[in-house]
């Protein structure tokens, strides 16, 4: 084991941590908006991610059938489509279901859980019970090898880049746009926001739909690293809630910090311990910190 080998492993391990951070953050972002800002416990978050994943699958199949020349180019288009498809579904779900339950958080939990089961079975009926594998463009596969023995996963870099873009976009939108202002006002004090002329119902619907749209983007991106099947979303839901709760509901910065903390702990522990023990250690740490600080890492300073 030479010095270069160790350096290479250290570099790749560093990137593994970063890439897990990106995955956790991306899956947590949509939920941070829906659960963090609106207080809706959205158990169907994972299924909105699955919508994104199946969008990629549909695009890849259609492209292969009708436009075989564009296989290398469909992916970015499909990601944008994934956002809008999940957005539209989110809009409909908010209108049909969520808006009736804003004052009943436990009922929302049950309702969205039921929704998630219904969506899973719908995916199963439409796309079949078996997992599918979208054909990914060549430029997303394999690794970038700047030196002998050093392989940086391209899909990891892609997810990292996409996460940066989406996070930046959400932060900008929330703190520099009219929509963001309305959301923050509604979260801070709903009757007062209403009184100042903000259509809070419309704001809610838009916020929920945007959260779902971001879940769609996350699901689409995860086709490069994970599975696409009716229940793929359920693989992520627990981690997504963990990230948001640990970061402190209502704080986007908290979500970022918590994703980073969990990812690094998990990734480093996995390297030195076994996979299951690493998970145990990470969860123990989170539980301990949440016992000391029930409001999460960053508590919002909003009077509720």
């Amino acid at each position, binding site marked *: 084991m030479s010095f270069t080998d160790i350096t290479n492993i250290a570099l790749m391990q560093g990137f593994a941590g970063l890439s897990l951070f990106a995955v956790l953050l991306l899956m947590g972002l949509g939920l941070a908006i829906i659960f963090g800002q609106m207080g809706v416990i959205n158990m169907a978050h994972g299924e909105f991610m699955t919508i994104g994943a199946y969008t990629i699958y549909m695009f890849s199949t259609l492209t292969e059938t009708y436009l075989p020349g564009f296989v290398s180019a469909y992916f970015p288009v499909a990601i944008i489509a994934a956002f809008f498809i999940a957005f539209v579904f989110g809009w409909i779900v908010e209108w049909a279901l969520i808006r009736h339950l804003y004052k009943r958080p436990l009922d929302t939990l049950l309702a969205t859980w039921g929704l998630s089961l219904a969506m899973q079975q719908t995916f199963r009926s439409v796309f079949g019970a*078996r997992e599918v*594998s979208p054909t*990914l463009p060549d430029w997303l596969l394999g690794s970038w090898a700047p030196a002998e023995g050093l392989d940086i996963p391209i899909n990891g870099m892609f997810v990292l880049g996409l996460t940066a873009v989406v996070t930046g976009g959400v932060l900008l939108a929330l703190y520099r746009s009219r929509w963001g202002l309305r959301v923050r006002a509604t979260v801070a004090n709903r009757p007062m926001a209403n009184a100042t002329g903000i259509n809070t119902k419309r704001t809610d619907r838009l916020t929920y739909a945007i959260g779902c749209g971001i879940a769609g983007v996350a699901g689409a991106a995860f086709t490069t*690293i994970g*599975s696409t099947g009716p229940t793929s979303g359920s693989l992520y839901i627990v981690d997504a809630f963990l990230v948001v709760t640990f970061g402190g509901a209502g704080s986007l910065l908290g979500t970022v910090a918590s994703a980073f903390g969990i990812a690094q702990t998990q990734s480093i522990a996995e390297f030195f311990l076994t*996979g299951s023990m*690493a998970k145990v250690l990470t969860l123990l740490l989170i539980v301990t910190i949440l016992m000391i600080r029930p409001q999460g890492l960053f508590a919002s300073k909003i009077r509720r």
Partner: protein
Amino acid sequence: MADKKDPIQAPLTDTQRRKMLMGMASAPALMMPAMTWANAAQYPTAKVNTTKLAVTDTEVVVGQLHSATGTMAISETGSIQAEQLAIDQINAMGGVLGRKIRVIKEDGASDWPTFAEKSKKLLVQDHVACVFGCWTSASRKAVLPIFEKENGMLYYPTFYEGLEQSKNVIYTGQEATQQILFGLDWASKEKKAKTFFLVGSDYIWPRTSMKIARKHIEGHLRASSVVGEEYYPLGHTNFNSLINKIKLKKPDVIFAAVVGGSNVAFYKQLKAAGITASKQFLLTISVTEDEVLGIGGENIAGFYSSMKYFQSLDNPNNKAFVEAFKKAYGPKSVIGDVTQAGYLGPWIWKATVEKAGSFDVDKIAAASGGIELKTAPEGYVKVHDNHHLWSRARIGMAQADGQFKVVAESPELIQPDPFPKGYQ
């Protein structure tokens, strides 16, 4: 399998070998006449059914218990389809003892208590003659006490960890030793592998399998060692740290038993980290054609899988089976190891009923040992007195199109040994 004293393999007798050749030579359609023209009149219901099973002069009712919904639907769909296909074919040939088979389908919904409840319903309320079902070991363990108490008969299709044997279960998949030992011996002999890195999902099947694998590597393979053994929770989707550990140890072989959604993530990330077949030898016991659908052929091409059946097997039985399967379920459908094992269930049951001349579970259980199936797509199988199958082990190399190319095959049928000595 150099070790002659090894109890796992028993050489075939000449008769068996001859029968096997005959089996391979004859397509299933040609097998029809001999036994099936038996009509119900020859076998009066009062005689073939002394235990109040749901058998009439024209009909016999069987149960099918798999997960059509929930997480496991991904895997169990193939078994459901294959069992139905076999039953349809048997009915088209005149049924069993002149009686048509009627299936009562129950959905275990990927939930083990539901499996238990539904199996009780099938046995106590419907009085089914037998049940084709279960996939995970967890579901089998959940229904086993019920089958033993109510005296039912279960045909279980999945390759599994062994350490079980019941009068009330026929295991049509392979137990651990039939899959693992041959694969490891092959890796050691053909690929000159000395160092093994074991990776699995964290539950009973991978853990038991790896325990057997470790014993075999350390005790039976020359100068070989296990350089890593890792388990990840079910549903784990991030394997980058594990991959770095593998890079650190540089094993000759990665021996993998990762399942479900994790499987897809594992192979996608291996490829993304530059671990491809050109640089690394990987042998898995958990990837069939079904799983490759989700993983994507390009992500696993060149890696090896140890199974007893591959869709690409070149024999007349399999050709007919693949053709019938695709005709029934679409030209794009694929057939994995367990799907084929599921297909064996109804045929073995039929052969056993005809040998016993009765549907009674006790008689079926007693008559099962020695039942042969020459029409099996995997070639030829025979039921051992321990209710597992003698079958061949095979190694397939994954191709980019999602199929496997068979690169090795055990020369003899391997005797099932659910309680291997020295491996526990």
